Every structure is written in structure tokens, then in C-alpha cells.
């Protein structure tokens, strides 16, 4: 991901919030951008699960709805 220069941005819906990110980034890039690299997470794009092995190759499109989840206490 080239962060230098004039970036073209795109809008994603991440966990329900609109977020501007550089166009063409991967899911792996997004997780890094969000500072969640070392967290135990799972993710969906447009309601479809993305296996962790696919984060680096999964390129995001404008308007994608991303869900990033983790475990919490619950009963």
C-alpha cells in the first residue's frame, strides 16, 4: 500500500460506521489501519465470512460492509 502521493479514497462501512480508506486496500491493510493487527478477530465482508488466510489477498471495494468481531463475555 502506497500511502505517499495523492491517494484515491473510498468509503467502507466498518462495523456500522462510515470510514474513508485508501482505495484498493486489502482486508489485511484495513486491520492494520485500525490498529488491530495482533488481536484475535474474525471478519465478514458483505455478510460473508473471510478466513484469516484470505485477509492479505482480499481486496476491498467501495461500499463494502465490513464486520470485525471478537469474543466477549456472554451467557
Amino acid at each position: 500500500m502506497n500511502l505517499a502521493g495523492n491517494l484515491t479514497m473510498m468509503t467502507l462501512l466498518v462495523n456500522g460506521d462510515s470510514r474513508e480508506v485508501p482505495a484498493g486496500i486489502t482486508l489485511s491493510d484495513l486491520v492494520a489501519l485500525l490498529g488491530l493487527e495482533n488481536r484475535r478477530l474474525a471478519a465478514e465482508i458483505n455478510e460473508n465470512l473471510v478466513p484469516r488466510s484470505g485477509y492479505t489477498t482480499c481486496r476491498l471495494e467501495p461500499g463494502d460492509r465490513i464486520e470485525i468481531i471478537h469474543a466477549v463475555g456472554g451467557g
Partner: protein
Amino acid sequence: MNPSFPDPAGDTFTLAGRSFQSRLLVGTGKYQDLEQTRQAIEASGAEIVTIAVRRTNMGQTPGEPNILEVLPPDRYTILPNTAGCYDAKTAVRTCRLARELLDDHRLVKLEVLGDEKTLFPDVVATLEAAETLIAEGFQVMVYTNDDPILARRFEAMGCVAVMPLAAPIGSGLGIRNRLNIRTIVENAKVPILVDAGVGTASDAAIAMELGCDGVLMNTAIAAAQDPILMAHAMRLGIAAGRLAYRAGRMPAKRFASASSPLDGLFF
């Protein structure tokens, strides 16, 4: 060695091919903090522990402790649930996320709720979700109402455990309909675990005395005035009820029967 000492190792139950000694399953919600969660679970003696999955808070600091950190996987079987799901599709998505999150973990507790007031299951949507999940290789433990016919249907579909409610989730009302729970138990070949509605230790004992294989609870422990003490109480209540079931209780009689002998009365 006393041959009659009840050997817990000899009274395990088998769920999805794994053997468990503790018949108390606990949730991890509603505690004050993770340390209280950890202590309560330890006191409960539980081996199977439910968690939920929720959106990661973006503002969260990376160092914040995570529920999984207090649940070492070598010690606890994690049971992700679908709490909060009101339709089959969402429940299925939740299970898939949990499976990925926990490295192809296939054991899930499926609940598809009908409304927020009662948190009763929507059994039709639950059937639909169970079918999909079982086809995808999940081991489904299913939260349902106390209808014996539905319980049998879930078993026939391939659910690995059927979990009828005792009373509404978080109500603490105890087992509302013992007859139904008993009938479900008598019909079943998979484990029957009472899920939801237990309020105190005697409720847990009653569930076990009805022949259930175990009880899952959360609020009854977490919302007690002293959750750690209540976790101990529940552990003992489950054990007491299980032993009483195995021991075979005396028949109840309407009238009295003297405990001391009638022979030899000197008056």
C-alpha cells in the same frame, strides 16, 4: 478405599464425542470484570464455558484484556453462542465467525430468539439455522422451549445436545414445567441440558434430579450478591442433584411413616 464413595470420574457425560466431568456449564456475561469472571468460573468447576461474539470497538486500546485470556483452551471448552440473534441467517453468520475466530471450532450454542421481552426461542427459525449449521459441519447445542416433540426433532436432525429452557433467560424463576423437562429427558439419546431460568442452587439440583445431563447458567451466578460463593453453591447443587438422581429417591407418600422402630415401645 470406601467402595461406595461416589467417584466423579466414573460419572462423566459425553457431548459431541468429548467426555466431561462437570455437569455445570457457565456463561461469562454480566460480571463486574474479567477477574471476577475468572474466579467465578473457577469456583463453579465448569469445563464448558459460553462466550458471545461482538463487534470490535475501534477505539479500544490494544492492551485491553480479552475474555479468552481468562479461559485457557487447555482447561475450558469454549462454547460460542448466538445470543442476540433474532433470525436464522444472523445466527448462522455468528457461528461462522466464531468458528473462524476460534480456529475451526465447531461446537456452538445456537439460540435464535423470538422477542426481547421473553427471550423465548423462535423455534421455527432455530430449526432452519440448525439445519444449515449441521450441514456445514457444526456441532450444534440448541436452545429451545420445553416442548418434547421439538426436542426430539432437534435430536433427530443431528443436534449434539438439546437445551430446553427452565424459565425465561435471566428470570431466575426455576423450572416452570418439570413434567416437560422429565419427558424430554426420557425421550432423549443426546445430552439434555437445562439452559436459562435457574435462580438458585436448589433449582440446579432439581434439574439434575429430573435426569438432565447438565445445566447451563449465567445470571444466577453473576447476579448473586456474592457471585463467587454462588458459583460454589451451584457446583455443589449440581453434584447433589446428580447424586440424588443416581441414588434413586424414596417414593413420596401422602402420609407419615415412622423412622424409629415400632417394636420395643415400652409404653
